């Protein structure tokens, strides 16, 4: 049977947790095209991981069947497992084994004959660039290298079907690009079929075919162009005064016929309902500045968002008005350094953030972002240099500065077994709010972050998007001047990310200063200014357009085509290989 490498017919799967039934897949039917990369996308909880696990024989369906390479998975899991490669979201490398020993283990388990090993290992090591590190313990590899080793282990016995579950989560853009190059080679040279789930829409756009899952069902399946094609003639770039772009975006988002409006550089990108154009004349009048709208080709992301949104949902916007309690810069960093033993994690970093600005901190894993962040929040004392936050010198009055800042950490840091309401009132009390004021803030938080309907539920059981909103609300209970967000959107699906940024924009409009770290390059476009870090130093600083202008241009690429990601990679590569 030279049929599809993977097909599913009427797959259903329900999980029980805390007495509630959660439907992960309901009557899912699909057929994968052989010999290409298929992207699997969808919001959190759409059933992507469940489907991968069913295909790999790790779960048994409640109803329906999955067929892999002509074999029924539920009936013959061992045979399926010896002809596929599956890389789970967190590939479990044995950290106390070396690169070679990890390969040996999987070669033994997959039954690769000893004679065939040296050639196969050499090939995999060359492909992943791990050849110089074959004797290094896996635990000592960087995040990107670990991911590549995981992929090499999965590939040790060349599989006919490769299942990759979010292989690029938490991996920096440079390593991400390398992983993709490997996957393309496998498909073109070995005719492998690949199913890859991802939260990055630019990655989905590079796949030959894309499957969009939503609530356990296939919403759309086809080449990425098919997703954006219906939007031709409906996407525009609207440009006003560069410094007021946030207000322009908020106004556009409220205009009738606008399905989606996001910041891109100094303009706003909008998707219109069929047959409509943004009304620039009206905009010019309301805003009192010239506004221009140009038609642009639709992107994959536009298709994704409009497909999932259906009709537009009104997102409650937090209303804030902060009058800064300080004069001058919100954050001022001068010659900041931090040393851990012999290792300089941050070296002589200087930058300033103005009040009401959204400032981004970008960098590869280990670039010193988190260390800088912690010093700014007063969680880690600097080795040398000056830090002023909200006009207060952190070396002398860290506690006073902390009263003026809100902090949302990378991981969910609320009490999972308290309800949303209990968590919020705890944080209100922790910040010293009492009585009527605490009650007023609680109501504000529940309304502004759309938490009312689930306020009584245990926070740990809330969907990821809710948890993230709750964490942000908790950080804002005491009306801080400055909000610190450490990778707030890591692992969050594209729709929730958009909602999240709508709120950040509203906060910034209300005068709150926001400092944010992120791995998503399109989010860098939403920042007013940003700094790119590598090896503890700042490589470039400025507005998104200034950063792109600073980056060395790859051969033959016109500047207008440059994305934040290419700029980022070019900057890092220029630093690593100075001419």
């Amino acid at each position, binding site marked *: 049977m030279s049929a599809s490498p993977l097909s599913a017919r009427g797959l259903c799967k329900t999980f029980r947790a805390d007495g509630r039934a959660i439907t992960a897949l309901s009557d899912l039917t699909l057929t994968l095209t052989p010999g290409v990369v298929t992207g699997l996308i969808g919001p959190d909880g759409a059933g992507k991981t469940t489907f991968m696990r069913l295909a*790999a024989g790790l779960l048994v369906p409640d109803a329906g069947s999955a067929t892999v390479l002509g074999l029924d998975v539920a009936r013959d899991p061992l045979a399926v*497992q010896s002809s596929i490669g599956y890389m789970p979201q967190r590939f479990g490398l044995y950290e*106390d*084994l070396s690169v070679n020993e990890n390969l040996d283990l999987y070669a033994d*388990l*997959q039954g690769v004959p000893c004679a065939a090993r040296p050639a196969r290992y050499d090939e995999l090591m060359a492909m992943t660039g791990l050849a110089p590190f074959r004797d290094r313990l896996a635990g000592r590899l960087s995040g990107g290298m670990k991911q590549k080793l995981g992929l090499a282990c999965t590939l040790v016995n060349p599989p006919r079907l490769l299942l990759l579950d979010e292989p690029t989560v938490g991996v920096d853009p440079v390593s991400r690009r390398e992983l993709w190059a490997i996957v393309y080679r496998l498909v073109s040279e070995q005719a492998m079929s690949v199913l890859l789930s991802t939260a990055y829409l630019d990655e989905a756009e590079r796949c030959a075919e894309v499957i969009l899952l939503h609530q356990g069902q296939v919403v759309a399946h086809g080449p990425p162009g098919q997703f954006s094609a219906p939007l031709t003639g409906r996407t525009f770039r609207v440009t006003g005064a560069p410094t007021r772009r946030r207000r322009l975006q908020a106004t556009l988002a409220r205009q009738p016929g606008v399905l989606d409006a996001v910041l891109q550089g100094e303009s706003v990108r909008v998707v219109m309902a069929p047959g409509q154009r943004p009304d620039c004349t009206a905009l010019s009048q309301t805003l009192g500045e010239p506004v221009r709208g140009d038609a642009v080709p639709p992107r994959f992301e536009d298709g994704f968002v409009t497909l999932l949104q259906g009709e537009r949902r009104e997102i409650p916007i937090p209303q804030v008005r902060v009058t800064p309690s300080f004069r001058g810069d919100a954050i001022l960093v001068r010659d900041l350094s931090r040393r851990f033993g012999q290792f300089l994690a941050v070296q002589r970093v200087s930058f300033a953030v103005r009040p009401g600005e959204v400032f981004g901190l970008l960098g590869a894993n280990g670039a010193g972002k988190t260390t800088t962040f912690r010093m700014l929040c007063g969680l880690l004392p600097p080795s040398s240099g000056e830090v002023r936050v909200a006009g207060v010198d952190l070396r002398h009055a860290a506690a006073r500065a902390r009263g003026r800042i809100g902090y949302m950490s990378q991981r969910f840091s609320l009490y999972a077994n308290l309800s949303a309401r209990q968590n919020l009132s705890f944080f209100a009390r922790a910040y010293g709010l009492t009585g009527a004021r605490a009650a007023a803030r609680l109501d504000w938080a529940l309304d502004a972050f759309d938490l009312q309907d689930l306020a009584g539920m245990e926070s740990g059981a809330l969907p990821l998007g809710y948890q993230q909103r709750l964490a942000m609300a908790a950080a804002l209970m005491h009306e801080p001047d400055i909000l610190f967000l450490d990778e707030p959107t890591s692992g969050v699906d594209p729709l929730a990310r958009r909602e999240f940024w709508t709120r950040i924009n509203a906060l910034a409009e209300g005068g709150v200063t926001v400092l944010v770290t992120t791995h998503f390059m399109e989010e860098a476009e939403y920042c007013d200014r940003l700094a790119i870090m590598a090896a503890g130093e700042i490589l470039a600083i400025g507005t998104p357009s200034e950063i792109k202008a600073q980056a060395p241009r790859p051969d033959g690429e016109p500047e207008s085509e440059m994305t934040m990601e290419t700029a980022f990679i070019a900057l890092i590569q220029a630093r690593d290989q100075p001419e």
Partner: protein
Amino acid sequence: MKTMQPNRRLLGLLRKESLQILRDPSSIAIAFVLPAVLLLLFGYGVSLDSKGVPVGFVVMQPGAEAASFVGAFQHSTYFAPRVYRTRQAGREALRAREVTGLVVLSADFAQRLKADREAPIQVLVNGVDANSARLLEGYVQGVWAVWLQRELTARQIAIATPVAVQARIWFNPELRSRNYLVPGLLVVNMTLVGALLTAMVFAREWERGTLEALLVTPVTVNEILIGKILPYFVLGMGGMVLSVAMAVFQFGVPLRGSLWVLAVCATLFLLAALGMGLLISIVTRNQFVAGMIAILAAFLPAFLLSGFLFDIGSMPAVVGVITHIVAARYFVTIVQTLFLAGDVWAVILPNAAALALMATFFLGLSRRLLRKRIE
């Protein structure tokens, strides 16, 4: 399609596990260093015997008889007597815990000995440490009885003791507590490796996601289980050899039974402990919880309910019944018998059968519960 012998996969798993054990300092520490430390601690430090116990004597009327009586205690290695002249001084010393007990010889001690052929004494013991108190009481009475008999015989007075008890102690004639503590420790040590270490190591595979990657390879459940059991079995047996060697050569505990019987019984016990460790980790899938459960369900019972420290016969009936589900109990009985008495089949066979039953139960249940699924 199987192009390879299945044992190739098992060999791969075994090699991986061995490398991990060798590189993880904590597993070596739990298997060898901790047992050695426990053995040294119990062998040298902890003793349930009374030696050089400070005992106060209140002698109100010094004389030849009183001196002879106190002298009887001075000759014993068990006591370190101190003499006080008044009841008051003696009581102060007892209260200040300078002495653990007080023997009061009244002013008419010598007179009553001569006249009534008896020499009543009062014994006051500090009951805070109930165990030592009871021991001390018994020792003092024993010394007193022996001394009285000797005194009266010397004066050629017959005493009115109708029955003469001649006590002989078998198997451990010197009543050295080390002789039964050190073999018992073997059991505790093997529980550490078998249940605690194994439960934590396997739970770690769930936590780190290494098991998910393993499960999608063509490996079978049996291969995963054997790949885990065998290396830790070798580690546990290594620890046991070390413990036996230390017991015999370092502490001079006699080993009267046969080595092969010890090896067979140790195998059964270790399999039961490993099975329990695996079961705990399969159910919990979490290192912290697995560790706590292993300590509560295996390690502490091995200490407290196995008869290693506390005699099962003198436990309350309910607790005595509970000890029957503690594998360590059977092995402690076997080990103490093998070391001190020899190959007493009437003891070894039923206890070994119980161990075999428990090993089968735990391993069988682990095999049933471990699936190549992640639900």
